[in-house]
């Protein structure tokens, strides 16, 4: 099956008077299959947005090649744009228009009718806000309207550039459900985000990006398994004698202070069974490795949001 996106060795360098040369994208290659939910994860300034803008056809790369649904996104082609939906980082609306007028205008640009516009407004839960002016919507509502505008043309491929940045946790979860729904309808979704848990929760595959390069690509589970990291098991202090702690840890790492005991184990099942048998489960916390640890491993530095 033909890939939805095929990106080969993208290069983009910005030359600023003050900043000098910045290699925003430095040899990026990846492939997104049709129907996939693909994430590009990285801290701010990693080059995610520039990569996305090149793939969308907003910018020309200095080098490398992009195939979008089998075609080059540059120069602009109405036929290709028709099959693609885009949500940019900033919500861009016509000033002084209501949510309904906004989405109807976008619908007309994609050759869709008013009924489709109204359906989309309902789908993102803004049916009762149709007569509200865009600028008066909350941040989450604006993002949902922007998402509706991206979907009104019934695209096969949807690009979402940090849609949940600057949203409160409730609004973020709300948007997650919408994004899952879009993918479940059979659309290919490409999402950039700097939230680890977002990438883990939504994406079939994730590309971890830093300093203009892709450092690892795979499903979140694969990437974490590849770390071969121990599971951290924490219980409250005072339930186990020092000798018993040593015995339970066998030869693995363990750390204790006055409030808690932390085991790092590769046999979590054995350890947890033994702890349960001892009745020492108070304050239990089990933490497996996550994408944060993957990031730490591939970049050699701590994740900062």
């Amino acid at each position, binding site marked *: 099956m033909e890939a939805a996106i095929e990106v080969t060795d993208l290069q983009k360098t910005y030359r600023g008077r003050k900043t000098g040369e910045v290699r925003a994208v430095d040899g990026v290659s990846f492939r997104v299959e049709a129907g996939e939910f693909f994430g590009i994860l990285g801290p701010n300034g990693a080059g995610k947005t520039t990569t996305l803008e090149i793939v969308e056809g907003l910018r020309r790369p200095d080098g490398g090649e992009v195939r979008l649904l089998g075609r080059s996104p540059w120069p602009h082609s*109405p036929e290709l744009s028709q099959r693609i939906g885009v949500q940019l980082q900033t919500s*861009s609306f016509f000033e002084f228009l209501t949510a309904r007028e906004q989405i109807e205008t976008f619908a007309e640009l994609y*050759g869709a009718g008013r009924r489709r516009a109204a359906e989309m407004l309902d789908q993102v839960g803004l049916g009762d806000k149709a007569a509200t002016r865009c600028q008066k919507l909350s941040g989450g509502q604006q993002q949902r309207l922007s998402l509706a505008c991206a979907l009104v043309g019934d695209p096969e491929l949807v690009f979402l550039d940090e849609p949940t940045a600057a949203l409160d946790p409730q609004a973020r979860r709300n948007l997650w459900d919408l994004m899952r729904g879009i993918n479940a309808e059979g659309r290919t979704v490409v999402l950039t985000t700097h939230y680890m848990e977002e990438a883990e929760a939504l994406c079939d595959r994730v590309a971890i990006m830093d300093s203009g390069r892709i450092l690892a690509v795979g499903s979140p589970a694969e990437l974490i398994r590849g770390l071969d990291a121990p599971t951290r098991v924490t219980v409250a202090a005072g339930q186990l004698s020092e000798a018993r702690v040593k015995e339970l840890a066998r030869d693995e790492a363990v750390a204790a202070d006055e409030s808690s005991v932390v085991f790092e184990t590769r046999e979590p099942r054995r350890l947890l069974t033994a702890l349960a048998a001892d009745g020492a489960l108070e304050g239990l916390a089990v933490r497996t490795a996550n994408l944060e640890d993957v990031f730490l491993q591939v970049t050699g530095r701590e994740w900062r949001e």
Partner: protein
Amino acid sequence: MSVAAPERTGAPPRRSRAYLSLIRALGLSWLRDRSQVFFNLILPGMFLVLLVSVYGSNATPTPEVLEVGEVPVLERAEPGDFELSGAADLDSALEAVADGDADAAVVQDGETVTVYYSQTDATAGVVALERLSGLVDDVNVAVLTEAAPDAPVLELVTDAAEDNSLQPVQYLAPGILAWGIAISGVFGAAGTIVDWKRDKLIRRLRLTPASAGTFVGARITVSLLVALLQTALFLAVAVAMGLRLSAWTWFAVPLVLLGTAMFLAIGVVLGGIAKTGPGAAGLSNMVTMPMAFISGAFFPLAAAPQWVQWLSALSPMRYLNEGLQKVVVSGASPAAVLPEVGILAAFAAVLALIAWKTFKFDEL
């Protein structure tokens, strides 16, 4: 994983349909912006009403005219045309005129009537001149009918004369209209560019099947439509203030469109430089205010110092003003304003080129 994407039949809409929906959206957002509506549609009319009241209303005052020696021609004056009084000699009469105590002084030497009129109060002076001129014509007609065809004919000589006898509304209306067109063009384009830099709307629209060109075209169309609406409203106010529109007034349409295109180009250059909305407004003011003053928008250029008149040759607003003056007020035919049309077109072309070359498209 491979879920088959749904079958789609939707084709991109025709360009003309996208263009029309964009015009509707942009026009609607323009109309709902009250500050735009005030600034573009109401302010120029307000200015006209205000300035006409300052320079003298249509109900012109009776000019005070000093009769130096015997001026037989004045015997035929209708009562109420002038407020006549005698003067001892020409020098004292001229002094009175210069001081503003009288609006004009008249001397008749045989067949020559000489009018000295005030420039301190241009309106009353001009009115005096106009009426005296009419009077002399009347006398000529009377003399011609009474006497033989070769009878002496009175000749009017005006001194320090501006030979136009325009009412304030007649010279103010084209000037303020040109200024109104300039501010909506320059401020509108500069503000729009700054908005686009901020909200990235154009970037978003570039990713729809409609091209960026269609969008920019729609935005320019909205500006041109606004300029026409502005012109129509403004001329309605001017007519209410006593302006009589010439039969060639319709030729203001191409002048206004050409002028708007030119001022939009200036606005694009300024919007490219400015970083914020207030910055764009400041730059626009910096360009339009001096331009208005050297273009004769608020006072007749002939009354300005020579260097201002020279400088005004560089101001595109002047040619719009003069072109409008000719077709709307003086009733000149479109052929007579071809030089203005040519100059405006040349300015528009050069400014558009500058805008195109200096604009950083990456910032949008």
